[in-house]
Every structure is written in structure tokens, then in C-alpha cells.
């Protein structure tokens, strides 16, 4: 068994989180991952409070184990959903796309374990200072909203900078990735792309097919030119058009932001291969079958355990 301080802190069997993927990570997926011994996470995304309440209710009806909610700090409903997680006493909150400092006091008072996603050492230090129990250091291999550093460079530097547990994310889809991240100093991992192919994942079948078909070079980053909404997704007509517009001479940040509106929903709910934005990580090429979430977790940790046990092979 691989046990780390994060298992004890969150009362989970395996030190693995399922990423809070917008339009995808609902109460059902979160419950399946939590029932498998990991930490399932519901994405509050850009939706209002009613959606989140419903998903929390669904998760609670399917599992007695702890789960989390991911709060996207750029959401127009952020104040409302931030209050709901406190009222509902959700065990764990992860945050993305910004600094959660504004909500920290309320969440800590509600007994929530707060674990922000960070993309740099300075962000990690600020999170620790404001009362975060741990941080998720997410490299740019990830799908969705990303920073610039790779997991390989980011994780050890964050581990050196803070005295709270570090969970690694970005570019991990199997036991090799998990073992490597533990060697970098992480005590847990967060995976998104692999869980897109969980049987319990409600995403449109076309989305699953896009990930299954993806190779190592299938993803591309949009939004780098003006920053703010830098995103990794699978190359398709949507990304090609986006990049053409983004680098056009008359492009403006406002015009570019407009381009992405609604595209996540089109991909996740309608499976629109042409106009949808299919967020996925660079590791998508390694994800090649659909399995129950619990089986994914077991398989990953059996492999990681074997690798970590055999690591002395190289020490002569």
C-alpha cells in the first residue's frame, strides 16, 4: 500500500484526487472516485448555486466517503458557490484560476480543508500563508487552464518552498507518473484526463473518443498571447480557428475571450467535435481504455507500488 500524509489528512485510502473538470466532474463521477478510495471532486465551474447543491446531494446519496468541490475563482457565481460549500460543510475545497484568500476565513471557520491549485512557488507560499492545508502544484502538461512551468520543474521547487503537503498534477496518467511525482517530493497526485475515461464519467461519448484517439502531440495551448485564459485542449477546428484569430493583427483580449464562450459545454455535453473545446492533458496519448474509476485507481497504485519498491535497482 502507498500511504502518505494526505491519506491521513483527508481520510482517503489512496493519495489521488480526480481533477475538477468543468461541465464534466459532477456528483456521480466524484462519488465513483471517492468510493474507489480516492478523492472525488465536483466542479462548481461557471454554474450557479442550485447546480452545485444538486451535485453535492447526488454525491452524498452515492457515497459516505469524503469528496471535494473545485471552485473556479473566475466564475461569475464565485461568491455564491463559496458560501454554499461552507454551508454544506463540504470536506475539501480545491480552487483554481486565482487566489482564494478572500474566502479562506469563512472556509476554515466551516472546518473545510482548503487545497488551492498553484502554478508557481510564489502562489504556493501565499496559499500556505493564508491557511491552505496543502497545495496542488499543477504543471502545464495539464488540460484546461494552465500556467507555464512543467510538473517536473514546478513540483520540487514548490516542495522546497512550503511546509505543507504538495500534490502533483499535470502529465500523470499511470503508476509511472505517480512514482515519479513521489520522487519529486509530492505526497499525492491529481489526475484529470485519465478519469475522462472512467465508466462513471458523464462526458459525451465523442469526448471520450477524442481522448482515446489522441496521441502525444494531439493537444495545443490557446490563449497564450494575451494571457489570463491560457488553455490546453485537443486540436480541432475550434483550436485552429482560435489560434488564427488570436494571432491576427487586429486581435484584442476582449475579442479572444469571446471566442471561447460556450465551447466547453459544446464539447462535454453535445460532443461537437468541430466547435467544441475538448480540454485534455498532454498525457492523453497514454489513456487507451474505459474502466470503472475504482479500477483505474487500483491499477495505477499497483504499478506505482511495484516501481517504488524496485527503485533501488539503480543504486549500486
Amino acid at each position: 500500500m502507498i500511504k502518505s500524509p494526505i491519506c491521513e489528512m483527508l481520510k482517503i485510502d489512496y493519495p489521488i484526487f480526480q481533477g475538477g473538470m468543468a461541465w464534466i466532474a459532477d456528483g456521480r463521477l466524484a462519488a465513483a472516485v471517492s468510493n474507489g478510495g480516492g478523492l472525488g471532486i465536483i466542479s462548481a465551474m461557471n454554474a450557479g448555486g442550485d447546480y452545485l447543491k444538486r451535485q453535492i446531494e447526488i454525491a452524498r446519496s452515492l457515497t459516505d466517503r469524503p469528496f471535494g468541490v473545485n471552485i473556479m475563482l473566475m466564475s461569475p457565481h464565485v461568491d455564491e458557490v463559496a458560501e454554499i460549500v461552507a454551508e454544506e460543510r463540504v470536506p475539501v475545497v480545491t480552487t483554481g484560476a486565482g487566489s482564494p484568500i478572500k474566502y479562506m476565513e469563512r472556509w476554515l471557520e466551516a472546518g473545510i480543508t482548503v487545497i488551492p491549485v498553484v502554478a508557481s512557488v510564489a502562489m504556493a507560499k501565499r496559499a500556505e500563508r493564508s491557511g491552505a492545508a496543502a497545495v496542488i502544484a499543477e504543471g502545464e502538461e495539464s488540460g484546461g487552464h494552465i500556467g507555464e512551468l512543467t510538473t517536473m520543474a514546478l513540483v520540487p521547487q514548490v516542495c522546497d518552498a512550503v511546509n505543507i503537503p504538495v500534490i502533483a498534477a499535470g502529465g500523470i496518467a499511470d503508476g509511472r507518473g505517480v512514482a515519479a511525482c513521489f520522487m519529486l517530493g509530492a505526497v499525492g497526485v491529481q489526475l484529470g484526463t485519465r478519469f475522462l475515461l472512467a465508466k462513471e464519467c458523464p462526458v459525451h461519448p465523442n469526448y471520450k473518443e477524442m481522448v482515446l484517439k489522441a496521441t502525444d502531440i494531439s493537444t495545443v495551448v490557446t490563449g497564450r498571447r494575451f494571457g489570463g485564459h491560457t488553455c490546453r485542449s485537443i486540436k480541432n477546428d475550434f483550436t485552429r480557428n482560435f489560434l488564427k484569430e488570436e494571432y491576427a493583427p487586429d486581435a484584442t483580449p476582449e475579442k479572444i475571450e469571446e471566442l471561447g464562450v460556450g465551447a466547453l459545454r459544446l464539447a462535454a455535453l453535445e460532443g461537437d467535435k468541430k466547435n467544441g473545446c475538448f480540454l485534455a492533458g498532454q498525457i492523453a496519448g497514454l489513456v487507451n481504455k474505459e474502466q470503472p474509476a475504482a479500477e483505474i485507481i487500483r491499477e495505477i497504485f499497483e504499478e506505482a507500488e511495484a516501481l517504488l519498491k524496485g527503485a533501488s535497482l539503480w543504486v549500486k
Partner: protein
Amino acid sequence: MVLEKVRELIAEKINCEPGSITEETKFADLGIDSLDVTELVMSIEDEFNIELEINESMVTVADLIKAVESKTAKG
């Protein structure tokens, strides 16, 4: 005084001449993104021994200076 120090810290961080930075300079024009701003604010906090909030309205050097001054004035 605050301007000078802030300029110096920015210049040191991005390897440019402090003289090329004015209060009106936008971070975006210096190629400073939100991650850079976070790091910059951390070094400013250490320098002035204060704690600052980072938000999206921090666009220009003047915005940052205003934030610093509001904290140092109180202290």
C-alpha cells in the same frame, strides 16, 4: 520613495533599466503576467514588511504603489 523601491524591484526581476519604468507603465507592457505579479508582490511584502492583496485591478505600477502606500501609511 515607494516608487523608487518598486521600480528597483521590478527592474531587478525582469532585467531592465529602472528608468524605463514609470507609474503609468502597465505590467502587461513589461511582459509581466499574473504569476509574475504574485512573485513581485511577495518581494515587495518582504521589503516593506506588509501584506498585500492581489486582485485583477492591479494593472499599472501606480496601482501597486497605491496598494503599498495604503498599508505603509496605516503601519
